[in-house]
């Protein structure tokens, strides 16, 4: 392979998805669990992102962070600081963050009106 050529290979112009001003909600149960996770330290934020992969193409990514390098929009939802990366904002507008309390498959769940389908474990969507 001509690697000099590769270095100068024309970059493919990507049509980046439109950045959407996200609104989201958190259920009462999820708020309780987030309160417990934050332990009162509201200097931290809940990062709600999307990664590629999973059985259905996209995977949710929930993290409690102090800050992030990602280009994010910052929301205040029920007293929580929520960060949503602009790159995945079009996939997250209108979501509800819920918490399901059961032994198997329990934990935080995202109800997403943008998802056409989800995989069996509920962690990925398309």
């Amino acid at each position, binding site marked *: *392979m*001509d*690697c000099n*050529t*590769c270095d100068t*290979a*024309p*970059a*493919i112009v*990507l*049509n980046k*998805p439109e950045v959407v001003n996200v609104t989201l909600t958190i259920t009462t149960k999820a708020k309780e669990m987030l309160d417990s996770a934050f332990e009162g330290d509201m200097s931290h934020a809940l990062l709600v*992102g*999307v*990664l*590629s*992969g*999973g*059985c*259905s*193409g*996209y*995977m949710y990514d929930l993290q409690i962070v102090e800050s992030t390098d*990602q*280009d994010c929009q910052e929301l205040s939802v029920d007293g929580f600081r929520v960060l949503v*990366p602009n*790159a*995945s904002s079009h996939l997250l507008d209108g979501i509800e963050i819920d918490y399901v309390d059961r032994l198997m498959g329990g934990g935080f769940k995202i109800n997403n009106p943008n998802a056409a*389908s989800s*995989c*069996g474990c509920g*962690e*990925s969507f*398309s």
Partner: protein
Amino acid sequence: MGVIKLNSYVLIIRGSDRFKFVDGLSTNKVEGDCCTVFTTTTAKVIDMVDVIDMGEFLALVGHNHFKNDVLEHMHKRILSQDIQIGDASQNNSVYLSTTDIEVTDSVTKRNTWRGWVLVTPNSELINETMDLQDFNEYRVMNMIPHQGYEITSNNHPLACGLGHLVHEAKGCYIGQEILARMRSRGRQGKQLVRLENPVENATTLGKTHSLAIVRTSI
């Protein structure tokens, strides 16, 4: 048997997330050189690609007719990842050799399950010694599926002879749930077979035998 020029694209994937990115979108474990299959959420084939680890970047070599589908598949899943995609298709040619031949340093050569894949700069063309009919005969003899014949968007990898490129334990990727279910339940629906001629609905015709994808109880 010889060397044939393939109608291939060469995409260049750069960025620190390149392995994770390609791994998460395809059926095989991508940690270096390998062959893998991009599949849809319904586990249908988008394209089979040879992944060539060039150190600073990955080169993906696939079938030209499927390039736009692969690009669309990848584009919308880059999101926040460190990924840059370039297209070196116009500057390089891709050949498949059934034997290990001598090449110069400027030719990238990889031994794959189909034979030796050679990616050459256009300034250094390789002499073709096999025509399409010979290539098809080689494929029939060795049960090697090819894009546009057996490897199409109508089939899933297990049906078109690419089961060995579907890693059993790598974890989630697009289409994994369906492929895992087919395997665990022993129901893949169709499979690639080589049959003696005449073969009804052959996908590749050979002189004495042909390839076909047939319904199976397996």
